[in-house]
Each structure stands twice: as C-alpha cells, then as structure tokens.
C-alpha cells in the first residue's frame, strides 16, 4: 500500500460518490456542484495515469465550460429553492434493477475477459507528441478528424444561435 494507491482510491471514491450524489440529489444546483467534483475526480485519475494534457483539457472544457454552461441554464430555467420533481417509484425500482443488472453483467464480463497487453515502446503522451500526431497528415495522423470536429463545432455553434434566435424573431 503506497501513496499512489491511496490517492487512486481516494480519487475513485470522490468520482463515484459525487457521481451518485449528482444523480440522486433533489436540489438541482447541488447536482451541478457534485457533477463538478465528479469530473474533477476523473481529471485526477487522468493525472494519476500520467495523462496531464487530457486531464487539463478535462478540467478546462468540462469543469470550466460545460458545467458552467449547465449552471447558467439552471439559472435561466429554475426557480430558486425549488426541489426537483420526484420520479415514479415504479420507474425508480425498475431503473435500479436494470442498472444493477447491467453493471453486474458488465463487471462479470470484464473480469472474465483476459485482456491482451501489447508490448512495445511506450509513447509519452506529452503535448509535443500529441500535437505532432494531431496535425499530421501521414499514416496515423489525425488532421482530417481534427478538421471534421472543428467543422462540427462550428456547425453546433451556428445551430445554437439559430435555435436560440428563432423564437425571438417570431415573437417580435
């Protein structure tokens, strides 16, 4: 039992506990906050795994971007102090059952499966390497997907504007 292990389990606990709280609390703002912590926990795991760049992206995009967006939308749509509506109990039971079964099935499969580890010279996931491969047009390069994703983002941006704007014009 060394420090690294302890840190890992702490991070794991943080992630899962915050995740569970985030889907179970009846106060929506708290749910968002729990989500942040859960995401931070995942970022921590990325750090733990030595994937600093991804961890940074995770913090910046998720915690700094998406969740803030979510919080803004909560402000826009939610009355303060209002509890979230309760779900039907039947639905809850069924969901728990299904989720538990699914989880059990997955884990059984995971533990029964013998993963084959590839040997070979490990590539350091440092920013320089990532950048090179990302913008490379050679074999194994990700220039094309990169462009596709950027266009997708652009399209999403335009889409958001259109969706948000259309109603206003009609009412005006």
């Amino acid at each position, binding site marked *: 039992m060394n420090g690294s292990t302890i840190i890992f389990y702490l991070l794991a606990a943080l992630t899962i506990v915050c995740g569970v709280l985030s889907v179970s609390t009846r106060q929506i703002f708290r*749910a968002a906050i729990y989500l942040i912590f859960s*995401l931070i926990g995942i970022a921590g795991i990325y750090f733990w795994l030595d994937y600093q760049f991804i961890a940074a992206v995770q913090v910046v995009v998720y915690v700094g971007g998406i969740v803030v967006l979510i919080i803004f939308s909560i402000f826009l749509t939610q009355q303060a102090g209002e509890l979230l509506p309760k779900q039907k109990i039947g639905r809850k039971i069924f969901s728990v059952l299904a989720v538990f079964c699914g989880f059990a099935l997955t884990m059984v499969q995971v533990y029964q499966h013998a993963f084959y580890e590839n040997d070979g010279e490990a590539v350091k996931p440092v920013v320089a390497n990532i950048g090179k491969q990302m913008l490379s047009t050679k074999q194994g390069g990700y220039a094309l997907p990169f462009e596709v994703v950027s266009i997708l983002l652009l399209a999403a941006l335009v889409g958001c504007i259109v969706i948000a704007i259309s109603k206003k014009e009609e009412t005006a």
Partner: protein
Amino acid sequence: MMEPGLYQILFISAALFFTGVYGFLTRRNLITMLMSVELILNSVNLNFIAFNKYLWPQKMDGLFFTLFVIAIAAAEAAVAIAIIINLYRSHNSIDVENAEDLKY
C-alpha cells in the same frame, strides 16, 4: 487493497456509466438528464484512456478519441442547452414528461 490497474479503472468507469444511466432514466428535469449524459460520456473517456494506457501504450489513439469526445460533448452540451432553453420558453417547463409533443 490491490494495486490499482486496468480492472479498477474499468470498475470506476462502469460504475460511473451506470450511475449516469440511472440518472438518465429517473431524472425528470432535462438539465439533470444532460448531466447524467455527461457522466456517461466521461466514463467512456475514462475507458479510452485506460485502455490506451494499459493495453496500447505505444499508440495514442485512445487519447485522441477522448479529445474528440470531449470536443463533441462540448458541442452537444451547447446544442442541448439551446434546445432546453427554447423548450423552456415555449412550454415554460423543462420537465421531460411534458416534452412529448412529437408523440404518435
């Protein structure tokens, strides 16, 4: 306690995934459903990274996929929230039970 490895991470990601699914199934508020979806996406990202780390250390494909997923998740969240806000404007509610105009 065991040395953390692939199986432990897979356990976390599976737990996170099903937590997200549970949230998606039981939450009635669209924003919280969106949060559940974020959890699901993150569990997938975690899997990619873990497999990359433990099974294909000589490549970075998992990492790139994670990157793209994050990018797409950002777009998705933006669009989803635009829709949610629009829905709120027209229906004055973002309860998923009420958003059923497109049935039949």
